[in-house]
């Protein structure tokens, strides 16, 4: 019966959960190094293709645009492993702390 005093104490404690996503959005503790949605800097990229080669899930795909080769990131396939950030020789990719990437339309889930 070690449980009873604990249960009573909990009546007066503040609740452990947050009312996400309707309230308390700003209260979510997002740590410094969280791996979230990536940001891509087209100016730095040299089109070496290492990100696409080492991406474990095929989320980074190499395409050609008017300035040459460059990757496109399909975040609906992305694992947020940061391997692309790690291999990029020009630091063109950075994973930001943005974690709310769910959406209704797959075509929005692309980082260009």
């Amino acid at each position, binding site marked *: *019966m*070690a*449980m009873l005093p*604990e*249960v009573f104490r909990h009546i007066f404690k503040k609740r*452990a959960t947050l009312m996400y996503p309707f309230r308390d959005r700003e209260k979510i*503790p997002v*740590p*410094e*190094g*969280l*791996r979230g949605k990536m940001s891509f800097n087209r100016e730095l990229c040299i089109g070496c293709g290492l990100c696409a*080669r*080492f*991406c*474990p*899930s095929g989320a980074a795909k190499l395409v050609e645009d008017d300035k040459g080769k460059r990757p496109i990131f399909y975040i609906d396939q992305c*694992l*947020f*492993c*940061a*391997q692309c950030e*790690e*291999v990029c020789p020009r630091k063109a990719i950075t994973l930001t702390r943005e974690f709310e990437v769910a959406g209704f339309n797959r075509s929005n889930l692309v980082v260009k």
Partner: protein
Amino acid sequence: MSVSSSYERFFDIPIGPQHPALKEPLFLKLIVEGEHVVAADVDVSYTHRGIERAMQERNYVQNIYLAERICGICNVAHTLCYCQNVEGLYDVEIPSRALYIRVLVEELARIHSHLLWLGVAAHEIGFDTLFMYVWRDREIVMDLIEEVTGNRVTSAINTIGGVRRDVKPETCDKCLKAMDYIEERTKYYKRVCKTDPTIAARCVGVGILKPDEAVRLCAVGPTLRASNVKYDVRADDPYAVHDEVPFNVIVYDTNDSFGRILVRIDEIFESINMVRYCIKHMPSGPVRARLRLNPPVGEHLSRVEAPRGELVHYVKSNGSEKPERYKVRTPTFENLSALCEMLTSKGNYVVNIADVPVVFASIDPCLSCTSRVAILDSERGKIWIGSLEELKRLKR
């Protein structure tokens, strides 16, 4: 399976693969006589994902993340085992700070896994208050893992040659503070488990596995240690810095589900002390050795003590950027034959149908990592799950 009987009073009860009491797709075929289970058969082949084959199609770096996804809860153990394995192909020394960080994260993951299991076990027993309290406290460990590695669940911290990020001093302070809190809470949960009549009624004497049977059936991990067999890969074949970090191998001689609860709770205390030791004694220096992309030709086998028991990975390299063969043997697979033993009534030991979920939960099953190869025997029209060894035997 056939049970010989002089009278026809046996019934087959199929449970699963979709069943409200089970979280994972498992098919249990119980043969019962009245309320008593006299034989059990398990089929775990509902989540076969072909990971070993997929690993042969990807390069060594991509495979780190695939290995991580063999199991979500023990992802750290899987990447650790994978990375040690590939590092074994090179002749290379891993920086000692990296090894300390590996052990730190591994032990944090063990604390979270054991707390998760304690919650699930409480839920199976029907003690949902305990389940909710335990899972609330587990969040603290999850937050620590998120802080150290960058993600709550799939940590992606280990890499071939070391770890991918360093631990900051502020994070270490936070870890130490959180460990004090977790220790205090775990002490309380241990008191609850030891004194609560519900837990005693549901667990004591349920799911008996005798030491000699445990060894014969190759049980591993806490299931084995609750049968009073002192075996832990961290102590018997130390990897990373487990030869430097002191800890005790916890054993209990109750041989039942209750012992398995206590083993895991006591292991949380050991892990807490190991986390503290790692933080205090972590040397400074680099956290990663750079290695060539293609490992040399060769083969290697590595073992780690995952939260559920001994985990074995095997790799065969032909010098290209993809492994020629990869083999994983997960702890739950080893524990399944012990599970069938626990579910079999004999002599004075009876298993009631109501005990089945508790006994099943007591091995801390993780089925999606277990499902390996399905063998279809066309002559007898039978499908079963087999190991690579069995497959080899069949081929001959």
